């Protein structure tokens, strides 16, 4: 074999020009190898700690979200019903509920979830003129890295056409309910941990409106023009109000008239601030 020529070891020349004293190609390779192995082991370790390793619940050996299950949308028609009842139970994730479902549709739900076990179960039934839908998290054993930042997300649109009872139970995560365009008959919201934001419309809600929160901040918005009365039982945390009138233990909208149909809201707050806004 012949002697080495200038272009024989271009890579080594390039590295030496970087003036990384003491760093040889061998050292660089060993460092890269060490980083590769250590990072991989830590990654697998985290998956193991959080129960995301393959082997259970049909998980694959991939560290990636299953691309086919990143998101899907389901529609549930009214089927002639004139009254709706929707119950949503979510273990952990982010929930958005709003109006604006397509015509003659009681609910349209778009879900983003991590893997097959996160796919919610949706059951529907029709009883006379009432259609009921329950959307339930099947439950999952995996612990969350940061629950409120979980990629498990539901975006639910409800019908503006028919009056409906809405029940929302969430374990952990942020909940955003923009119900301003809905024709609500009653509302129950329970959130274990996470921030909750609720916006109601000016139409009075004839049934009960109950909001029970564990840990997390609540923002409740109602129209100033509405006839609303709110009673708040707060554990640890401030209660702030904007545009409301305090009447004893109640907060009312400025034009509150008990003789007219009233939206009566009961708030039970565990730990966290409560912000009431009449806008």
């Amino acid at each position: 074999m012949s002697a080495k020529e200038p272009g024989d070891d271009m890579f080594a020349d390039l590295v030496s020009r970087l003036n990384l004293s003491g760093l040889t190609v061998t050292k660089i390779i060993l460092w890269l190898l060490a980083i590769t192995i250590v990072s991989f082991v830590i990654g697998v370790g985290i998956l193991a700690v959080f129960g995301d390793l393959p082997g259970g619940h049909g998980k694959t050996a991939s560290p990636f979200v299953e691309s086919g299950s990143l998101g899907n949308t389901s529609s549930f028609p009214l089927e002639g019903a004139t009254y709706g009842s929707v119950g949503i139970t979510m273990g952990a994730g982010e929930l958005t509920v709003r109006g604006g479902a397509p015509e003659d549709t009681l609910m349209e739900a778009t879900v983003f979830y991590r893997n097959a076990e996160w796919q919610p179960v949706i059951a529907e039934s029709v009883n006379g003129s009432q259609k009921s839908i329950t959307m339930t998290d099947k439950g999952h054993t995996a612990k969350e890295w940061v629950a409120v930042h979980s990629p498990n997300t539901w975006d639910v649109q409800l019908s503006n056409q028919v009056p409906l009872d809405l029940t929302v139970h969430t374990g952990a995560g942020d909940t955003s309910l923009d119900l301003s365009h809905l024709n609500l008959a009653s509302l129950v919201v329970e959130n274990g941990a996470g921030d909750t934001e609720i916006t109601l419309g000016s139409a009075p809600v004839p049934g009960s409106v109950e909001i029970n929160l564990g840990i997390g901040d609540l923002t409740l918005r109602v129209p100033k023009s509405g006839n609303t009365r709110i009673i708040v039982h707060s554990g640890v945390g401030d209660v702030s109000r904007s545009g409301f009138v305090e009447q004893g233990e109640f907060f009312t909208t400025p034009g509150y008239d008990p003789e007219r149909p009233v939206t009566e809201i009961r708030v039970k707050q565990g730990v966290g601030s409560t912000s009431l806004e009449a806008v």
Partner: protein
Amino acid sequence: MLQNEQEFIRILKERLEGTLAREELDDIVSDYSEHFRMGKESGRTDEELCKSLGSPEDIARELKALHLVKKAENSKSCRNIFHAVIATLGLGLFNLVFVLVPFLILLVMLFVVFIVGILFAVFGPVGFVFSLIQLAGQPAFAIWLNPAAGAFFAISITTMGLLLIIGDYYLARFFYRVGIRYLKWNISVITDTEEI
């Protein structure tokens, strides 16, 4: 069949011009002229000498292949090894199987490893950014089953990509050396001479 020395030398020169340096070509021509001179002195005819030497085209092909392999050995470059392989192919049709096929397989393998390395080195940082976005609470950008684990996997993928690129470079050098030896061995077998 060639009948005389002049014709033999003319064809040899024609075939080697442009590949060999002038001095080298003159040396070769001089060697063959000397061979003819000595042959004639010992009473052999041009025709006999031409017959004993064989076809000048074949001799030119062998010399050309030897020269280009030596050139590739002394000055390592893709161009030189490519020329050496092409010249060796000209020595016999069977070299399509014994030279071209292994050469192409190695070329494709090195190319694939390089491309995979590049993809890893590019996807790693992208995956890392995605894991941060996912940790920041943007589920629409969720590509990792677990964003914290994903960040470490992304680092691992990046460094693995860099290792593949570096490894590919050394692998290419290794196969270059082995390839040169193989070409020299191939030429020596075909021309029935000692390996240079």
